[in-house]
């Protein structure tokens, strides 16, 4: 994991003091709310329905025990004893007082954390594969480049007032777990022989105009990456639309120019950038940052026998191990998903005690490494299999061992109308009601991998466009309705789901999802054919018929 040096530490400390000054000026009335708004937003402070909300950055989802424990302490000290993990791999506190935020930021700075650029029309927290550094299918660890992008984008003077927010995602694996196709810039690390480079995609996004990113360059050498993305940012900053908030994302610029013309402009800007403003990142700096991400000193002891024995003795453990483990590149190890999706819970929420427990487990058993996934779960990326049973027992006792990773109850759900002042409809209760239908773990496993994503409004924080089944809350004359879409996916075969038909009342959503699933179970050629594959093979028609059949 990256550790701050004196420079990083000073920058974050200076930010805390700067924000303290801004809050003081706001509270004294020297700053008008309208002028304070972009300042607080660039520090992750929103005004929500009931209170201020603080969004803390978790760059590329990377935590360790000390950081997660501090996140727990902040929730105890300044909030109501819980936090909400988001699809941007961040954490949100929903009930903080403005006057306390500078102190909270100071507490976070002590463990090398901040809330810089977690909101506002600037470059946001860079996200990545939550199994980075552990996954068997990656060409290299993407985190060093995420960290370089984090530093480069922090307080970038030219790009702090963009037309709209801007999100980067980076993957280095064949199977895309970072949803790069629906980001403003998506990067895939590739190798040509020994040379490392980037496939650069731009113009993806969700919201009211969901679009998949276009490939603008299939190999940018690593040493030139920052020049290339700076060129994209400059084209966007100068020519992105500013006349209409809903058309201001880079995806609209790419769409209106067409990917070819957009690419031509980027390449011209890149060529000029290389002549005049070349960043020239020193190789020693690239190497320095990579060195922080060396793999842990893996435990060589083979714990397979004990692991197998525990599974045989304890069916609940076996079931969890079947679902919530991911293959690790190192023999005798696995990556563990700590589910924040208990049946009937609020997706992505964790209490202070739960956070502290996961921190303890990571320190004790898992090389002190923790990640947040964009699916709103926690991950212990490196776990010797000999410790899995002890970890499971502790998680299970704390309500953190729901065996549902990537299954139908592992829903992505935005906070919705229960918290958010943008929302048109509630998300959390709909998610809970859907979970209830599929609560039986055995039934979930029979259904297999199936992603349901729920957003409470068109801004799509719940990623409904890329859910295999997407659920979007809409407002119809003051009443909450839900639009179902089918066939979205966020992986390397990314697709935007198609709306299935008229919106439904909230109470009808669980039954409708059940009919969709029943249709899949009847149509699939074998249990190995996933929902999304059956849908793509058979088409949406049979599903729509079932969806709108009289109950």
């Amino acid at each position, binding site marked *: 994991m990256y550790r701050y040096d004196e420079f990083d530490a000073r920058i974050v400390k200076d930010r805390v003091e700067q924000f303290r000054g801004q809050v003081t000026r706001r509270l004294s009335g020297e700053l008008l709310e309208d*002028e304070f708004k972009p300042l607080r937003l660039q520090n992750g402070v929103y005004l929500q329905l009931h209170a201020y909300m603080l969004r803390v950055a978790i760059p590329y989802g990377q935590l360790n025990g000390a950081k997660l424990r501090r996140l727990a302490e902040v929730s105890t000290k300044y909030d109501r004893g819980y936090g909400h993990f988001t699809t941007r791999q961040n954490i949100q506190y929903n009930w903080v007082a403005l006057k306390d935020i500078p102190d909270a930021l100071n507490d976070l700075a002590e463990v090398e954390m901040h809330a810089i650029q977690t909101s506002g029309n600037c470059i946001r927290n860079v996200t990545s594969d939550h199994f980075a550094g552990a996954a068997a299918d990656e060409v290299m660890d993407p985190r060093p480049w995420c960290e370089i992008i984090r530093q480069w984008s922090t307080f970038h*003077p030219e790009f*702090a007032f963009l037309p709209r927010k801007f999100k980067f995602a980076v993957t280095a694996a064949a199977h895309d777990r970072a949803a790069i196709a629906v980001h403003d810039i998506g990067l895939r690390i590739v190798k040509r022989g020994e040379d490392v480079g980037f496939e650069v995609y731009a113009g993806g996004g969700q919201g009211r105009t969901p679009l998949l990113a276009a490939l603008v360059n299939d190999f940018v050498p690593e040493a030139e990456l920052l020049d290339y993305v700076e060129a994209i940012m400059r084209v966007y*900053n100068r020519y992105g639309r500013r006349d209409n908030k809903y058309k201001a994302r880079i995806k609209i610029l790419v769409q209106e120019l067409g990917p070819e013309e957009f690419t031509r402009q980027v390449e011209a800007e890149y060529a000029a950038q290389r002549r005049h403003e070349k960043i020239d990142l*020193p190789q020693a700096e690239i190497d*320095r940052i990579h060195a922080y991400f060396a793999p842990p000193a893996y435990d060589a002891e083979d714990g397979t026998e004990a692991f197998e024995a525990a599974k045989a003795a304890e069916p609940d453990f076996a079931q969890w191990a079947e679902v919530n483990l991911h293959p690790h590149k190192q023999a005798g190890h696995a990556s563990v998903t700590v589910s924040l999706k208990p049946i009937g819970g609020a997706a992505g929420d964790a209490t202070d005690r739960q956070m502290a427990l996961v921190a303890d487990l990571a320190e004790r058993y898992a090389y002190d490494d923790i990640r947040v996934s964009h699916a709103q779960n926690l991950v212990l990326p490196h776990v010797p299999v000999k410790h899995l049973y002890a970890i499971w027992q502790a998680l299970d006792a704390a309500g953190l061992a729901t065996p549902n990773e990537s299954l139908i109850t592992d829903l992505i759900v935005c906070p919705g109308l229960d918290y958010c002042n943008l929302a048109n409809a509630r998300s959390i209760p709909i998610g809970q009601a859907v979970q209830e239908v599929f609560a039986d773990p055995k039934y979930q496993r029979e259904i297999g991998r199936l992603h349901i994503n729920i957003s409470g409004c068109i801004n799509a924080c719940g990623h409904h466009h890329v859910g295999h089944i997407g659920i979007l809350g809409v407002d119809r004359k003051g009443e909450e309705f839900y639009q179902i879409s089918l066939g979205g996916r966020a992986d390397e075969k990314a697709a935007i789901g198609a709306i299935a038909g008229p919106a439904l009342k909230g109470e009808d959503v669980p039954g409708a999802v059940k009919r969709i699933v029943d249709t899949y179970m009847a149509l699939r050629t074998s249990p190995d054919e996933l929902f999304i594959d059956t849908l793509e093979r058979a088409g949406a028609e049979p599903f729509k018929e079932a969806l709108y059949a009289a109950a």
Partner: protein
Amino acid sequence: MPLLKDGAEIENIWLFLDQDSEAELKPDQAVTLPLARFLEQAESLAGRNAPVGVRLVPEDDPTLLEPFLEWIQLVEVSFPKYTDGRGYSQAQLLRRRHGYQGELRAVGHVLRDQIFYMNRSGFDAYETARADLPSVLEALNEFRDTYQPAADGRVSVFHARHGS
């Protein structure tokens, strides 16, 4: 409106003439013009004895000024709304790509908390009603370190770590 430059409040000697203004100019009056009018009249303006400048709006392409950057003495970059960040790119391009050495002044909706970024982007003068001199000086020094190379020439942290 107060004009701040080089750590002091200075007198604004410049007169802005909009596109259609027919005001009679005194021969020694320093004047700034909109880009279109400047480009139309560049030849005759070059012969003036008094200083000449240009005011850019966010849509303007600063590259068009390249042939004139040797002799114009002021470029004003206007921020109609502080949320419109195009002026930062205009400034970076003028300073870094086109080597402009004269005064680069931020005008319009210029707030204290934008000035750090403006300074890094190459501005050296700020016309602002919303920030006094002490607060601007404070804003300029809020960060001791900066990650990126920019128009202010500060050594980036990426490079400072390796002694370059």
